[in-house]
């Protein structure tokens, strides 16, 4: 087979696309009442098939498709992570669609198509392909955000997300264009060697200033996608309006993929301009942590609170970017996995609890949840404790690795800012736990009995177990993350850093 046309290199993308098309085709043929469940299960199997496909890829890693796709431990890690996120979100959506009275099998198809984009983002090593993948995933999430068609907030959320998102991707595209202008290529590895040697492929000198501007513009685009300050302003409004399971997806899947892209660009292509982007990322990390946590302190709406908390977590993650790269990259990759597990879980609980029309999303609505619905409350407690960073949860090791890396890189001030922020954050997460367990339930009939439905329970139990597993046995995921981290760097750098 022609190595440039190796379909194994894009197997998960193919599987997901075919599955998504199949969902669209099957949907009209099913009776409306049972369509949700069977389509949901069908799409769930699709995500599992995609996970299997990416695991199959690991037998034969390498570059394909004219140097645009690279399958390595890094991309496989993100493939598995993103497909798992989609699988859990699909599981958690079964009952949500019913209670919200949302019809439309294309919901699941959109999740699958969005996943194609995210998966492609993590394996693409060519800037234009990265941009296309980014758009595939974004368009799917723009549509998903407005799925509560009757609610004005949902439409507002979608429009906001769409306008600001298009604006941000325009920045990214501009950055790509400037990078092409500076180095004469859009391939990450060619850019890397051009920046290193100071000469483009054509032999003309590289314009360093242009490259700096390009990196900054691309950072703006990605910073928007990961909700890092100061590009975070859209987050609370969009998360508040969008359907809760979609927020679970939006706040983890595209974010993980965008972090993958950021890692590819910053460490793969422009590593030796790191002194240029160091302060960019440093300031963004410090701002995200601080603004995110202060914002979350003031919220009474749990969805908005979690939105601000996701800004703060993006900040913690960015700390790892400026740390020493032999430990920082692995820490960042681990963080995305750990954050995905706890955040998807937390939003799954929120989605179930909010009931039809998303009425119950304020903190006081959660009072007495511990008595009324022990499973929901117990799992939400685990996720919140993990978000705080209590030991024996994934959140603890995620923070530990990041700040350990920061300390070893002498980023004392960033570490202090991060730790102070973690302490502040404990307050608003704990507030939810206190309300759930220590307050009497509010009067009101439909709040009294709340049974966790099977699909949701499965999603919650899986995410809770993964959260605890990452806190008790982080070794396996961390090892894989570290192996991915090594693969991320250009060949010259790889020899300098051996896996631990």
């Amino acid at each position, binding site marked *: 087979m022609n190595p440039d046309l190796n379909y194994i290199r894009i197997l998960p993308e193919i599987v997901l696309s075919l599955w998504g098309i199949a969902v669209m085709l099957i949907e009209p043929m099913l009776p409306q009442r049972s369509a949700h469940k069977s389509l949901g299960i069908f799409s769930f199997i699709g995500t599992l098939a995609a996970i299997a496909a990416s695991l199959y890829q690991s037998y034969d890693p390498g570059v394909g498709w004219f140097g645009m796709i690279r399958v390595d431990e890094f991309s496989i890690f993100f493939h598995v992570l993103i497909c798992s996120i989609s699988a859990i979100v699909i599981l958690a959506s079964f009952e949500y669609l019913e209670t919200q009275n949302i019809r439309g099998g294309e919901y699941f198809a959109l999740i699958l198509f969005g996943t194609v984009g995210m998966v492609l983002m993590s394996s693409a090593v060519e800037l234009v392909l990265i941009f296309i993948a980014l758009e595939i995933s974004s368009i799917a999430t723009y549509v998903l955000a407005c799925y509560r068609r009757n609610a004005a907030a949902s439409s507002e959320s979608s429009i906001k997300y769409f306008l600001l998102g298009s604006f941000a991707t325009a920045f990214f595209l501009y950055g790509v264009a400037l990078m092409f202008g500076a180095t004469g290529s859009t391939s990450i590895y060619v850019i890397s060697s051009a920046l290193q040697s100071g000469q483009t492929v054509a032999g003309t000198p590289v314009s360093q200033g242009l490259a700096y501007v390009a990196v900054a513009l691309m950072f703006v685009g990605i910073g928007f996608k990961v909700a890092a300050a100061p590009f975070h302003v859209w987050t609370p409004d969009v998360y508040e309006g969008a359907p809760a399971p979609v927020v679970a997806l939006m706040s983890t899947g595209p974010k993980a993929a965008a972090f993958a892209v950021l890692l590819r660009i910053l460490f793969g292509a422009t590593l030796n301009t790191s002194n240029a982007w160091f302060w960019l990322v440093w300031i963004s990390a410090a701002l995200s942590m601080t603004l995110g946590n202060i914002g979350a302190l003031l919220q009474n709406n749990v969805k908005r609170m979690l939105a601000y908390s996701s800004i703060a977590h993006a900040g913690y993650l960015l700390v790892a970017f400026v740390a020493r790269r032999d430990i920082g990259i692995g820490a960042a990759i681990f963080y995305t996995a750990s954050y995905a597990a706890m955040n998807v879980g937390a939003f799954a609980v929120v989605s179930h609890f909010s009931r039809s029309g998303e009425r119950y999303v304020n903190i006081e609505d959660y009072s007495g949840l*511990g*008595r009324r619905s*022990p499973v929901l409350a117990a799992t939400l*407690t685990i996720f919140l*404790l993990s978000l705080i960073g*209590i*030991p*024996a949860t994934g959140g603890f090791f995620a923070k*530990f690795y990041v700040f*350990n890396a920061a*300390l*070893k890189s002498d980023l004392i001030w960033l570490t202090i800012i991060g730790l102070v922020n973690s*302490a502040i954050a*404990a307050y608003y997460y*704990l507030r939810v736990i*206190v309300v759930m*367990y*220590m*307050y009497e339930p509010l009067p009101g009939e439909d709040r009294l009995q709340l049974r966790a439905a099977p699909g949701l329970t499965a999603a919650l139990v899986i995410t809770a177990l993964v959260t605890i597993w990452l806190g008790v*046995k*982080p*070794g396996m995921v*961390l*090892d894989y993350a570290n192996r991915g981290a090594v693969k991320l760097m250009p060949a010259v750098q790889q020899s300098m850093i051996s896996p*631990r």
Partner: protein
Amino acid sequence: MEAIHSSGMNAAILTIVTFLPLVGAFLLMAMPRKDRALKWTALIVSIVTFIFSLHLPVHWSHGAPGFQFVLDVPWITSPNIHYHMGVDGISVWLVLLTTFLTPFCVLVSWKSIHGGVKEFFVLMLILETAMLGVFVSLDLFLFYVFWEGTLIPMALIIGMYGHDRRVYAAVKFFLYTMVASVFMLVSIIWLYVHTGSFDYVTIQSAIQSGSIPGFNNAAGYLFFGFFIAFAVKVPLFPFHTWLPDAHVEAPTAGSVMLAAVLLKMGVYGLLRFNTTLFPAQAHQNAPWINALALIGIVYGALVALVQPNMKKLVAYSSVSHLGFCVLGIFTFTQAGVDGAVYQMLNHGISTGALFMLLGMLYERRHTYEIKEYGGLATTMPVYSTLFFMIVLSSVGLPLFNGFVGEFLVLSGAFKAWEWYGIIGTTGVIWSAGYLLWLYQRTFFGEVTHPVNERLHDADGRERLSLIPMVALALIMGVISPFWIRMIDPSVEQALRPSTVTAARWKPPTSVGGSDASASRESGAKSERRFGAGLKASGAKALFRGSTLTRCAEAQLSPDKSGGFHPNSYRRAGEATAILAMVKAGK
């Protein structure tokens, strides 16, 4: 430090004991909401855990100071964390105290918990696992995980099942201990970054060999980081303000666990980490720590004296009693530290039982106000008798366990500096004051409230949960060498590094442990004085032939496990002094 490496059952036993309650908790979660079945399951799980924990003293190798039943397997490679468990003579009894008390906590909660019975017992069992984990962990990270792990179930027990101001108390408890333990985490991570290990034994030997760069500059801060976490937990004056709130608002079983075990975690931490990892800093800081302990003893007692609420009274008495434990540890004398460890167990038994007793009274009248009671001795004779025995144990009357602990602590205190002993001794008087006065106002005199005439006496379940406690208080008062024999070698070992490193700095006064012969002399002097006081008080009859004589004799005689105990040489003088004193008393 030499540890006895174990295999088979001996290696697995600590894991079994620690995680059996957690398994029970999962079992309870899976069970249907039938209160009766849930209670019985919880009771059986906690009893089985206790039976398993009896393996520890039964298979104990006596005379060995190091850790036993050790299990050390790599857990996480990066960071380098080991699943390292083991107990020495100090922690083994705290493990047994925990497993012994949990069934009683289940029993006293039999009827007092309404609504969320399942969650209550689940939390109780999770709490037991976390507490046991604290005492058996020899890896600082593992220790920290369990340490934080106790926080959440305890806060939930207070916040979900407590009295009116429960949310306030739970949040206060959580914030105080959480913030304090962050300091400890920073110290632990510093040690990890500079030694590459979380392992207690590795870190200790690294510190002793002086191979850690920058340790001397940082040691003061590290000591303080650990100290603040433990001092809040103990609680040492002035960090004690969370305790009365938490105790008063907690349900009975919560108070019992809080007083009997959770506070001991603080004292245990001071002994295990502060004094053995940072001996020089411990010696340097001993004067003001002892001052805080003494203030705690006297202040706690004085505040207890004026409480109108009996639960608050007992809570403040804990502040006072725990002051003795801290004082004992920071005298750095064999007797003082032995006494501190023993006093931890005593306080667990007697204050645990006191809270159980108060809980029973509360179930009948729903108030803790002392003025609501009076003359209960006539309506509840059995209950009153059991209450009185426990009061005597808490006061430290000879023949009861409290006496042994307090005597050892005070003799250590006198040895360290006479004024420690003199001020500390007043604490004994104070405690007799507030507890006996409480007893008098509650049980003697006329029945002042008609409703109290109809109170029923302790029923079968209540007697079943109280009599073992009273019996144990008596047994521990009479055959204390059974316990001391196991505590002693480990304390000896814990004091040794401090003796070595203490030579580097100049002791301000004749602090015990820095100079063996001087301390022995001054110790003998103070003991003579103390003995004379006892003679005058007429306590000699009780004293004769009791624990201390046997204790002293045991130390002089060859060790039963074969061979002459090495400690005996060093402490021969000490033991002779006690013997001479007792004989003089005849």
